């Protein structure tokens, strides 16, 4: 089990989904902060830059892809895992082009998410080296 040095930010407007996901991750030693829209996400990032961000594409207000672009401009080291309930190929392709680390579909397979989080962290550490 990982120690609590993880700094993960979960962003989704579906409060029930994202809070439950945060709770489940925490149970697995992966503490995570949550933000319920794009603006809150950007503020959370400004306050405390996360290592990894799990970001829903379809949100009211600032869209996920715009949040991704802004974060990548100011905090290029943050690894972003995109979430989508729609699975539009175009969105996935754009997300990867803007620098997302991975692209996962809802409903999530938690094991797959944890695996991807580890890969993202590993990718970040390799970048640092």
């Amino acid at each position, binding site marked *: 089990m990982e120690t609590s040095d993880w700094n993960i930010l979960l962003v989704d407007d*579906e409060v*029930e*989904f994202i809070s*439950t*996901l945060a*709770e*489940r991750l925490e*149970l697995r030693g992966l503490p995570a902060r949550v933000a319920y829209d794009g603006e809150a996400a950007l503020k959370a990032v400004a306050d405390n830059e996360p290592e990894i961000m799990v970001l829903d594409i*379809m949100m009211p207000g600032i869209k996920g892809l715009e949040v991704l672009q802004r974060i990548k401009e100011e905090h290029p080291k943050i690894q972003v895992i995109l979430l989508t*309930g*729609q*699975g*539009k*190929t*175009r969105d996935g392709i754009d997300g990867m082009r803007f620098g997302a680390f991975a692209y996962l*579909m*809802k*409903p*999530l397979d*938690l094991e797959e998410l944890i695996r991807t989080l580890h890969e993202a962290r590993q990718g970040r550490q390799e970048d640092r080296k």
Partner: protein
Amino acid sequence: MRHVFSTFFGNTKSDPKDFASPECYDVLRRKIVLLMALVTLLPLLSLAGINYYEHQVAMTSEIQNPLRVLVGKAKHSFELFLAERTSAVSFIASAYSFEELSDDANLQRIFHVMRREFTGFVDLGLIDANGNQISYAGPYDLVGRNYAEQAWFQRVQFKGTYISDVFLGFRKYPHVIVAVRHTAENGESWVLRATLDTMHFDRIIAAMGLGADGDAFLVSRDGVLQTDSRRYGKVLDKLGFELPSTGFETNVDSTLDSDGQSIFIASALIADTDFALVDVKLKPTAFSTWYTVRIDLLFIFLTGVILIFLAVSRVTSVLIARLQESDRQRLGAIHQMEHSQKLSSIGRLAAGVAHEINNPLAIINEKTGLMRDILNLQPDFPAKDKFSKQIDAVLHSVDRCRSITHRMLSFAKRMDVKIEKLDLNAVLLETLGFLEREAQYRNITLKKELAENLPLMATDHGQIQQVFLNILNNALAAIAKEGTIVLRSWIENDKFIGVSVEDNGCGMSEETRNHIFEPFYTTKKEEGTGLGMSITYGIVKRLGGDLKIHSKLNAGTTVTILLPRTSLEG
């Protein structure tokens, strides 16, 4: 102009469906043929009519003019002949006294000289004022005969000179008399009368050169033939029809003769006589050349009409066929577009529905997952296993829903054209996933004989899936109840991968096989659009592949597709 055009051709509506019925094209074809035939035939007809009329006028003129000239010449011959004879008789009457002429020997001598100088004289006689024949030179014994009561004697007494109609008289053969009255200085008068042989008339007529079917004759004012006619009787017979009005100028007319035949008749009165020269020409004979020309004209006209009709019909048929083909293609394109739009709408709807379902599903998934996490952290309690089973059931259902929404999204993704590296077997199995449940319900066995080492193909996922879906749907539709569908895949060669779908359903007739790739051809009636196989064939061809169908009625169908490892286009 546009109004006239649309009135004739009907409304040219923009909706291509209006052109779809064969009757519509037939009506249009008939109208175009009629219009083009009218436009081309009217000038031809007018030309032929004018030509016909002009020809007839020219031919009539060509027949009438020579006839007029001929009769004019012959009339002058007659007049000259009679004038010479009358002058000769008149000269003798003036040159000799009554006594000299009364002497038979003198008269014989004079008659002899007359006959030598002028042909046609038969006899010569002297008649006194009382009508008694005083002397006579000729073949008959006429001395002592009295002519006082005869009409000709009365007229010569009155007019001085007289040329008779042809009559039989005492001689009982046709002759003409020329009589001249002479009055001496002492007031004594007598008549010198000569008889002319009408044979000379026949000679003048013969000299006209009438030909085998020509007929010319002399006829008196009261319609009695003065010479023989080839067609209307012998001399002194009554002419069977009325002469047109005749004067001294030659007149040409057309009329019907006693036999009802149409004739040209040229006539002219002979001066100082009561008879007219008549030349008759039968119209059919006269117009024989014209009739030949007319038949030629008619032949040319009819040939022209037939050729025009054939050309117009042919050109119109080609035009209509092209129009029909163009309309059909336009209709096909519109239907295909409508179909694509429909698919696109369904795709968007599927994506929307999937998204809307995926979010609550994600919540259920996470909440249930958390319940499991919490349960796992709890020490054992009596109902723990039961709880755990309930949670598993919920998570299993979430998985089922996830596969459904993902399939819907996969369908929606097919709207995005994209070439990607694909495992053809995976696409086949994915497509089969859509139909497995239906096959299961209908007791249809799905057998898979897929090559294991199939290389990845660079092609469009959506389009390939549509191809497989259409073919598998048809295979399912072909099996009424209980049957087998066998899916095969193999490496055909370096360039192609083969896929086949074999069913043991109802199969196809030869006619269906011949039309299966045509748009809108369907055997499913209301249930099918008739586009499935045409779209399928179009996609396979566009991707650079080939599609073949082997089918036997009531035995089954095998559809074989060869797909290139790298597609030409997406």
